């Protein structure tokens, strides 16, 4: 399941978290009898936070976890730096089982390998922006000059130059959120954990910060676990998306997979309102030239608009507006497929099984 076949930086295996005093009992009952969330609540007075989560995140990948409020996203992400101990299951970071680390090793991993942005920001109100941002280096005992340099670099990266001596309550919400981001990247960790970092912001600022984050992430090659309850955001920034429901991961896949191939009704409901224009590529909806010619007879492709298989539906729409003809898809200069107007319209509706219907 690892994205693009890279090494797994975060490797989560059959992770369960049950909250409550009788969690261990409940866990045994779940494993033996396969109790559901509601039975566990009624019989053991426990809350199932995470159910059997298994996923991996590859180096440099942005992995989005997406789900409604209360679906267990924050609970799941807190296992990665062991702010929460799992009831059962394992979690590896670069091959190390975090739940086997000693307290000292764990603090070292938290300070140097992992940066976290919190849903509620959680800045320290009694410290300046600079002191907040350099906190993880301060607790590691780095020299004042070194941590100041790194912190200023991080503050610079989130465009907060000149605000370093201010206190969090002197900043707007969006600026505070950027301080949170700067704090997470200051120690140059290889892993970022982002818990709904942009949810509380207005759409314009949110988009700016998303862009900022994506360019930072690509530049610094961070492995990111990104939580959101906004599918548009997940699609925009995620390389892969996991959809979470009642603590379980119901589907893991690329944005295109999720949108075109929802695993169940829950996911289908989620993606129903999503625009497919940017998500589906020409390669997904074209039919082979041979199939087209068999149906329509030989055609002269030279006057038709041309597209690349990676072009999005949006590009195809722009090409098609100017002409009556279908679009030819060419790879390396050779025509490999045709996108008819009907196929394009079906693609916009999210139906990508054109080739099958055409073959019938």
């Amino acid at each position, binding site marked *: 399941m690892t994205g693009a076949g890279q090494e797994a930086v975060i490797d989560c295996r059959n992770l369960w978290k049950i909250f409550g005093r009788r969690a261990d009992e409940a866990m045994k009952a779940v494993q033996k009898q396969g109790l559901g969330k509601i039975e566990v609540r009624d019989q053991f007075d426990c809350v199932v936070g995470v159910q059997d989560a298994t996923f991996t995140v590859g180096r440099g990948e942005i992995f989005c976890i997406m789900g409604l409020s209360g679906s267990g996203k924050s609970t799941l992400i807190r296992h990665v*730096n062991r*702010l929460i101990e799992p009831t059962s299951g394992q979690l590896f970071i670069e091959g190390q089982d975090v739940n086997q680390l000693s*307290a000292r090793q764990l*603090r*070292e*991993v*938290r*300070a*140097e390998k*992992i940066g*976290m942005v*919190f849903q*509620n920001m*959680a*800045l*320290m*109100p*009694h410290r300046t922006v600079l002191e907040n941002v350099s*906190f*993880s280096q*301060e*607790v*590691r005992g780095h020299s004042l000059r070194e941590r100041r340099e790194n912190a200023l670099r991080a503050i610079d990266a989130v465009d907060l130059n000149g605000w370093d001596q201010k*206190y969090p*309550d002197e900043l707007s919400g969006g600026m505070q959120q950027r301080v949170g981001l700067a*704090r997470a990247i200051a120690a140059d960790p290889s892993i970022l954990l982002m818990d709904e970092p942009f949810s509380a912001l207005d759409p314009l600022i949110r988009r700016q910060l998303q862009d900022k984050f994506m360019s930072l992430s690509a530049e610094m090659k961070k492995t990111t676990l990104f939580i959101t309850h906004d599918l548009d955001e997940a699609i925009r920034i995620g390389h892969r998306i996991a959809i979470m429901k009642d603590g379980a991961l119901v589907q893991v896949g690329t944005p295109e997979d999720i949108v075109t191939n929802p695993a169940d009704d829950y996911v289908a409901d989620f993606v129903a309102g999503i625009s497919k224009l940017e998500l589906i590529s020409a390669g997904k909806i074209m039919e082979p030239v041979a199939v087209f010619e068999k149906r329509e007879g030989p055609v002269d492709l030279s006057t038709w608009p041309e597209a690349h298989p990676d072009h999005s539906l949006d590009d195809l729409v722009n090409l098609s507006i100017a002409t009556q003809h279908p679009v030819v898809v060419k790879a390396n200069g050779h025509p490999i497929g045709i996108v008819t107007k009907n196929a394009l319209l079906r693609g916009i509706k999210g139906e990508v099984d054109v080739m099958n219907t055409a073959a019938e």
Partner: protein
Amino acid sequence: MAETQFSILDPFSSVDLGLAQSADGVKQWAIDNRGVIQPIKNFFNDMIVGIDTALNAVPPMIMLLIMVLIAWQAGGRRVAILVAVCMFALGFLSPNAWGLAMTTLAIVISAVILCFIIGLPLGILAGKNDRFEAGIRPVLDTMQTIPAFVYLVPVVMLIGIGNVSGVIVTIIFALPPLIRLTSLGIRGVNPSVVEAARAFGANPRQILFKVELPLATPTILAGVNQTIMLSLSMVVIASMISVKGLGNEVLRAMGRLDAGKALVGGLGIVILAVVLDRITQGMGQSGRERGHRHWWQGGPVGAVLRLAGKN
């Protein structure tokens, strides 16, 4: 016990468990352990006497100036003016009022320092540990409600009359609010900020000193303020076990029905209370409320720093 008939309707008067007698045993124990108690007593006595001598050695006008500067730093100009007026009034109450007030101040300072040393760790513990909090709460209730005369006697039996007993009696009465408010302050720290500190690799000690205590400081200082006020309210009772100072004036005035002397002592205590209250309340205020962020940015220190910065 043999002569009183046991009656089911009134079992209490006929049964004697010997509680009062066993408490008397304290005296024998104290006599037997004099060797242990005496050096500890001497240490604390030296501390109190040291502070007393120091405060009385400073000429009153210099002392007044120092207090006004402290008040200015802690609470701003208005507090400084109030403190100046109060201290002048105190000095003019009677020719010996200033010296008595300094002696009382020494007792209060000693008691508050010891309260702080004992109360802060206990308060932190109570803030972090629910069981400890549950266990210490009835003890604190007892300390605050039990009449002072009840523990006055055993304390005197153990340690004898004098300053040390006076301070101990004062501590028993004045300590509880500091512990309670420290615990409250620690519990009131936003848990998500503590979680963030954990997530960035802080160890428990760093979390305590870099996050929890700084954020709990206003509440803890409110506790210190309460402790100071309660210490002052104990000075008359403490003077019964031969503690000198303003309280002693009141006590002697009562004995002689001397209203004038009582007024001097009483007013002196009230003025001292007002002064100490305003100064500690000023410390508890956050810098934001006063328009600047750090304590060294305002008051006389700020003025000096600004001057130094200009040159």
